[in-house]
């Protein structure tokens, strides 16, 4: 079954808007929550990550909000730009095991100029 649920599947915003992508998980063993960004023709690349001991992390225009009690986390992109148009994957990782990273199904973001 899908260990990490992601929504929406696609998102269109105007330049300057704040797209929000949401993810939810059930397994309380997860202790690391990365986001990956994938441009067309490229593989996914790590964008930003958070641990559950903090509720928010910012890196530039990208912010992760984390709600441990609700087992939900989200990505916000401030002042979005056409160059942010990409597919975004949330993921959750547990501390042990070779295969310990579980991806959401992805959100295709389009930022209109």
């Amino acid at each position, binding site marked *: 079954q899908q260990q990490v649920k*992601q929504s929406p*599947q696609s998102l269109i915003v105007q330049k300057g808007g704040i797209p929000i992508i949401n993810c939810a998980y059930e397994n309380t063993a997860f*202790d*690391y929550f*990365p986001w990956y960004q994938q441009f067309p*023709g*490229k*593989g*996914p*690349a*790590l964008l930003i*990550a958070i641990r559950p001991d903090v509720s928010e992390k910012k890196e530039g225009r990208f912010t992760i909000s984390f709600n441990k009690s609700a087992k939900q986390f989200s990505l916000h992109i401030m002042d979005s730009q056409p160059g942010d148009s990409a597919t975004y*994957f949330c993921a959750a*990782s547990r*501390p042990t095991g*070779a*295969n310990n*990273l579980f*991806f*959401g*199904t*992805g959100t295709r973001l389009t930022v209109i100029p």
Partner: protein
Amino acid sequence: DVKVTQSSRYLVKRTGEKVFLECVQDMDHENMFWYRQDPGLGLRLIYFSYDVKMKEKGDIPEGYSVSREKKERFSLILESASTNQTSMYLCASRGQGGNQPQHFGDGTRLSIL
């Protein structure tokens, strides 16, 4: 910088052919992964390997096999290609321990005619 190199960006093969997809990483990572990416389905894990000659099935191993004879190289094999294996295939590698990020190649777009 970690580099994961997939041997082909685009590949066209015929139904019933045996197909080899090659992946090489240059960071001495123990763990390597093969995913397929399809619209709306996200990244689905086919196989992974945590050491030379070691392999484990992922979520969708049917119709595929893998080979890891050297630490830096992980091959995906389609034993008898079928049209439903037309997809984007992504290779990734990850170091050992803790919450190491996965590093992806740029993918092979495989078409089976």
